[in-house]
């Protein structure tokens, strides 16, 4: 439990902000749940509530176990995650040409979501151990650590998670301390490599992924087909206006013009119903979360804590920006859920565990001087 011996309102603020976002997510999921339900079906919002409860357990566990002891097992955890990723490619459940899930009883488990958090952990551990080393140790080695996971996720293929993975790596390398000279070289090198890499990435993409990227530029080229998601999402958000249409009048989401309204496009659902004012409040909550998380990172007692907190911040922040960006049509549509709001077991539990780790970092900083 949260330590009551140090009555810190900071922790409560942090928890309240997170719970607020979670609650808005549940309301949005509720609003797009089909009614009436077919027999024996559990409504999605109820399932999501169950996931949040499980997430709370993960959250408390992540607060309780000292992150130093977690970090000691980081490489083992990463190894296990890689095995899971191999297994999902070999025997996972496929959906739209991608294999991302394991069926665990009635639930679908998505290892790549967990892999993101484990990557943050293993890179934090690595950078904390190799302070003041040369650029090979600061870039090449962590790159080699990241690569197997990245390749396995691309193999599924899960473009969105692969991008998260890359972003986590890049931001950890930057925070972990790359000299300006090395940074410049890195950027130059990457941009030289890009045309070749692009060719490779482009040809390895599935048709639907390519279509999504192409129609991103102009959804009207195929409004009923490949541009459908992007266009309907824009219509949903735009039609929300300043004040929103409310839960009942939000026709785009209620009448299912907007596909995937409970998962990847939940932001569009929210924006249609609550309008600019509502989304502004939501953005304030996310901004608060970013701010509080960076406070925790900045006040961590050791590099490991700081790096861990920074990694989690970049992981959550990246998902937030890309998800919202794609629903608003300033980013191609890739399958990235909105943290704490999108429906989904693995993403909810992982996100909450990540927040637990953040709080863990916050609480351990006091112990240094005990």
């Amino acid at each position: 439990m949260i330590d009551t011996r140090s009555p810190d309102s900071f922790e409560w603020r942090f928890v309240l902000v997170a719970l607020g976002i979670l609650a808005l997510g549940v309301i949005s999921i509720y609003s797009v749940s089909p009614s009436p339900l077919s027999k024996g079906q559990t409504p999605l919002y109820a399932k999501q509530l169950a996931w949040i409860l499980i997430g709370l357990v993960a959250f408390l566990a992540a607060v309780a176990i000292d992150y130093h002891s977690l970090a000691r097992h980081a490489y083992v955890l990463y190894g296990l995650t890689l095995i899971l990723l191999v297994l999902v490619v070999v025997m996972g459940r496929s959906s739209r040409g991608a294999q991302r899930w394991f069926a665990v009883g009635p639930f679908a488990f998505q290892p790549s979501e967990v892999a993101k958090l484990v990557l943050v952990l293993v890179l934090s551990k690595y950078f904390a151990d190799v302070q003041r080393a040369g650029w090979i140790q600061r870039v090449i080695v962590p790159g080699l650590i990241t690569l197997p996971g990245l390749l396995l996720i691309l193999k599924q293929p899960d473009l969105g998670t692969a991008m998260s993975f890359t972003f986590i790596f890049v931001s950890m390398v930057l925070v972990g301390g790359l000299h300006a000279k090395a940074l410049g070289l890195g950027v130059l090198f990457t941009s030289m490599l890009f045309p070749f890499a692009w060719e490779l990435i482009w040809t390895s993409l599935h048709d639907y992924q390519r279509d999504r990227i192409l129609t991103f530029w102009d959804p009207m080229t195929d409004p009923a087909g490949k541009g459908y998601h992007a266009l309907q999402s824009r219509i949903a958000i735009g039609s929300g206006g300043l004040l929103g249409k409310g839960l009942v009048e939000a026709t785009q989401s209620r009448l299912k013009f907007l596909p995937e309204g409970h998962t990847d496009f939940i932001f569009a659902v929210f924006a249609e119903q609550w309008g600019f004012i509502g989304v502004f409040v939501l953005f304030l909550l996310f901004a608060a979360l970013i701010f509080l998380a960076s406070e925790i990172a900045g006040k961590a007692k050791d590099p490991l804590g700081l790096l861990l907190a920074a990694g989690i911040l970049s992981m959550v922040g990246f998902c937030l920006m890309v998800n919202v960006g794609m629903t608003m049509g300033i980013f191609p549509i890739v399958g990235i859920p909105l943290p704490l709001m999108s429906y989904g077991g693995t993403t909810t539990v992982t996100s909450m565990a990540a927040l637990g780790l953040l709080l863990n970092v916050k609480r351990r900083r006091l112990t240094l001087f005990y």
Partner: protein
Amino acid sequence: MSRFTTQHEDFRNLQRRLLYLRTGLLFCLLLLSARLWYLQVVKGPYYRELAEQNRVRTVDLKPARGLIFDRHGELLANNVPSFNLYLTVEDIRDREGLAAALEELIGLPRAETKKRLVQQAKSYVPILLKSGLTLREAALLEGRRLELTGLRVQAESQRNYVQGPLGSHLLGYVGEVSPEQQEEPDFAGLVQGSIVGKSGVEKTYDRMLRGKPGEKTIEVDARGNERKIVAVVEQTPGDDLYLSLNLRLQRLAESLLGAESGAIVALDPRNSDVLVMASSPAYDPNVLSRGLTPALWEQIASDTRHPLTNRALQGQYPPGSTFKIMVASAALESDKWSADTKVRCAGAFPSGKHMFKDWKKGGHGVMDLYHAIVQSCDVYFYNVGQRLGIDTIAETARLFGLGQPTGIDLPSERIGVVPSTEWKQRVRKEPWYVGETISASIGQGYITVTPLQMAVAIGAVSNGGTLHRPRLVRAVRERATGRLQEFPSVERGPVPLQEDTFHFLQDALREVVLHGTGGRARSRSISIAGKTGTAQTVAARVTQLSTDEEAIPKQFRDHAWFVAYAPAEEPQIAVAVLVENTGHGGTYAAPIAKALIEEYMKDSDVDDRHQIAGQL
């Protein structure tokens, strides 16, 4: 100590870089807010309209066509629900599979389905593949709707002609409006696929029968399923028509014609109500209204007996001896001839090199006008014609309405030909020959009339010279108000002949039935007056030498005419009967007229009580 300082410095470094990350993320959030402002506030109204367009569809509500009744309120045409099968070529994924499934489920030949699919030009317009599916067939198709894409079963209102082929020419039939029809002012502004009248009363009164389509605005979900009705503009059903037709008499008339080709028209000479309009052979308007397949259309179009032709007003025949009524009128009105003028008929009349024969070998002996009508003496009328000249005859014939439209409220009426010297010069670019006047005076040669024209003409004789426009629709009842609007009968004006002329004709025509060529129309109960006619077909002149009627091939036999009215003293019905290729009018047409008149007069007082107003 120094190690600690470096470590400390490193840590400060980390903290500084962390700040960049935070600032970067918050900056991104700010950019997203700007984009959000653009989408929701700047472009909000635009996207709101797009959302409305997504949500709302309008569906046409087809109105039910007006009902059609006969003069006694007997139902002639109504509407029944029908399951129709539509295909949208654009949406079809598997043509082979679809054709195979249709053969299996509803027995539609595979080849025919594929042929229809190829013919379609606009792939997004649904085509009617089959109408009138049984409930079972509709259910079978609905059950496999998900796999058979492009296929749709729609319950629609289908025109139904309760009496089958009875009165088919007069009622007409319905079908989808054609591009040519859309050019006509009566059908302008109709959307493609609208059901309109194609012929008969259905076409003439389409404006009233068709009704006004409604519109239903519905909210649909992303799959196009109806979720909620937003607004409804109800359709207005078409107005009901009350015809002047007497269904019982019509049925009798059609059965009297039987398998022969021909036409019967019966009018009420007091107001020209059309009591009967029969044309044989007939067709089943139900079949035509359910969507014509090319094969069926081909079959109908190539039928040499032309079942679609309404012979009553589109069949143009030489009037034969019935035309003697007009020639006699011309003679009575002329100062060149009188009723007492006598001619000796020896059975032939020489004109130039040609010898014109009388129908009776050996001739009728000495005749006056009265007896010439009664006995239908050809030689007498040859003389009249020669004396009067074609132009006088033509002028009188026109007074009876020949050579002009009767103005009946049906489409495509033909007017026949009343030849004159001027006509021949204009149309044939040739001068008139005297011999042609001889033919014309017994209703042969260029002259042609329709049975309807003859019915109107004999009606005018019977009522002392009043020409009416035939009235087919007595009243219309507006569905919207329930108001019954009666159509008055319209007089075309009097036939400007002397009263004595009509009396003379009436006496002579009565005598025709009593003691003349129309003996087979003599009735024990009703006093019938009439005139026989035997119109030679063009080819018949070649085979005229043969005296044995039965030996002449059917298509060369004469057309039998009989025009009549009854009761002679106070006429209530005027009839024109034409039977193609049978023989003498007195033999084949007169008995039909008699049977019809007797049936009508059997309860003519009952008929009078059945006024529409009483019915409603």
